[in-house]
């Protein structure tokens, strides 16, 4: 995530304060005209943004495809994403191309249909692996976003609100990690502690998902923390916080009813953008061989396998890359649209 986004997301928070203030003014003046609520206004603006809506629809479609479509496709095709078909090779000894029928060695006399061909010379179904890879990518990206944003919001808003030693520690830690070659650390951690965590799946997640979730959360909370700190720092000097303090509200009450509502907009915007960056991170780590390990499919390790055959089967590298592009593009477009919807005055 680029440092530049910090300022932009900040703007969304300030815009919300403005929008709310404007709203209550209208409500006071004309009582019989029902004023539009804040969320209704945001939704109306977002609905007009065709591109953002397209992004949102794509995301829903992709998630459905990954979690509902994959098992259905498996049932229709009659084989799983990890099944090996040594027959799925062409005359040159390379993985077979798209749209091909191959003999099923487990069930002689029957043919198996490989929509996008085989993933490697081991002959797994590339199409099913893409769908199941989507599951893994979404699980990692959504969990890591949840983890990093929870830590980031908690620490960032505490640092911004209480100042003092909490702020010192949080700011220093984030500064240190900004100067870290953090990718090296992520790779080192993933390859050292990763193996022992690979089998923790809680029965629902793919293998290696928990491990990446932990590592990406640990290294991902700095940006949200900095953004939240900056937003809260400006909020705590606002008149309404001062007024609340004057009438004797406790810190907890001020945070809950005066600060948190203003953080919702930047959190939502940052969440969408963060999912996109974690999907890229997962694919990158798996490509380097430290993320999701084979035989579990992920877009990253599909890309890695494809690079072995890119002169003979270039299609293999197109699919996972396109999948990553489509997904991150959808999240980025939705994120930009949401930012504009929350803060119509911001310029991009």
């Amino acid at each position: 995530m680029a440092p530049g986004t910090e300022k932009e997301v900040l703007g969304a928070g300030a815009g919300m304060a403005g929008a709310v203030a404007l709203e209550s003014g209208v409500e006071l003046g004309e009582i019989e005209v029902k004023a539009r609520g804040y969320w209704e206004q945001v939704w109306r603006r977002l609905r007009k943004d065709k591109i953002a809506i397209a992004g949102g629809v794509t995301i829903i479609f992709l998630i459905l495809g990954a979690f509902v479509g994959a098992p259905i496709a498996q049932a229709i095709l009659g084989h799983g994403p990890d099944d090996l078909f040594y027959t799925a090779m062409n005359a040159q000894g390379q993985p077979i191309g798209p749209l091909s029928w191959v003999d099923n060695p487990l069930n002689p006399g029957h043919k198996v249909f490989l929509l996008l061909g085989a993933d490697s010379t081991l002959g797994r179904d590339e199409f099913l692996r893409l769908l199941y890879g989507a599951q893994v990518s979404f699980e990692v990206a959504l969990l890591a976003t949840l983890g990093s944003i929870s830590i980031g919001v908690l620490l960032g808003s505490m640092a911004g609100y209480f100042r003092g030693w909490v702020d010192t520690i949080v700011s220093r830690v984030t500064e240190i990690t900004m100067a870290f070659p953090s990718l090296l650390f992520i790779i080192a951690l993933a390859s050292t502690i990763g193996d022992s965590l690979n089998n923790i799946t809680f029965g629902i997640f793919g293998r290696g998902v928990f491990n990446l979730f932990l590592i990406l959360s640990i290294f991902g909370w700095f940006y949200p923390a900095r953004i939240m700190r900056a937003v809260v720092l400006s909020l705590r000097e606002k008149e309404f916080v001062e007024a609340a303090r004057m009438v004797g509200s406790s810190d907890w009450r001020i945070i809950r009813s005066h600060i948190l509502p203003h953080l919702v907009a930047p959190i939502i915007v940052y969440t969408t953008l963060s999912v996109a960056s974690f999907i890229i991170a997962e694919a990158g780590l798996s490509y380097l061989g430290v993320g999701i390990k084979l035989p579990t499919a992920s877009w990253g390790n599909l890309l890695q396998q494809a690079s072995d055959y890119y002169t003979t089967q270039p299609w293999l590298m197109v699919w996972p890359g396109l999948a990553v592009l489509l997904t991150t593009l959808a999240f980025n477009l939705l994120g930009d649209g949401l930012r504009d919807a929350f803060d119509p005055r911001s310029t991009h």
Partner: protein
Amino acid sequence: MWAFVLFIAVTIVTYVIFYAIPANPARLACGQRATAECIKRAAHYLGTDRPLYVQYGKFFGRLMPVAGLGPNNFSPHFKTPNLGRSFTNRLTVNSVVLNAAPVTASLVFGGAVFWMLIALPVGILSALRPRSLLDRIAMVFVLVGISAHPVWIGLLLAYFLGFKAGVFPITGYCDFINPSGNCGGPVQWAYHLVLPWATFAFLFAALYVRMIRANVMEALGEDYVRTARAKGAPEWLVMRSHVLRNALLPVVTMLGMDIGIALGGAIFTESVFGLPGLGKTAIQAIENFDLPTTQGVVVFATLCIILLTLVVDLLYAWIDPRIRLT
């Protein structure tokens, strides 16, 4: 001072992470049928039989450029910082890092020039003509650039330009100065790096086009630009000394920060194109549980990032007279 604390923190963290490794480097050194005796000797030789803080202390002592104070306590002895020897091939880490650093430096700085060459004209022109065809194309480029995976861009470029068209070499690195065979010298160096540069620059070019466009548009709306135009200043002068000067200030800061971030991103480009740079060295070292080499790369990269930040701060104060160094 702050940079020094940072530096120590980074080295300690690497040590702790690697202490968590279940593999024993001494066992690896002895091969498959390791005897207890051999492991013990190897562990002693590598120094891994001592406690963590002793290992770290020795490492830190070697790293410091000052070996100790002289007899009269006033003249410190200076020495070259030493990163130790690799666990796997016993080469000095200094030589490993120094061999790999020019490759990564060529990639990162060449890539930075590449992305600025794309981002500056495109960003400025699309800010001057918002909603024009160029602006729309640039926005699509930005979206694809920030959404596509760098590895994928690299593979596609390698396939179409390197393999299909055969215009550029796909792998290999040629030294800038020392020619070996027909591979060497500035021309071959640049020729072999075109595809890695393009791959590397793609993401950052996209980010910078967006940032430069936003900055220039913001500066164009400022009061001082209107004043300058009202006074009848020619458009190129307004652009040069009012708009660009203000719009490009943040770009300088970003550039310094991003070159630091890019050192990490170089890992992907290096592994796609098989460049023997720092990133590839680090990955190999991590896979072999080779702590000294990993540590060496991390220390070196951190040092570079800290230095770059410092240079950017100084540069910034020089460009923008409003900022005073404290």
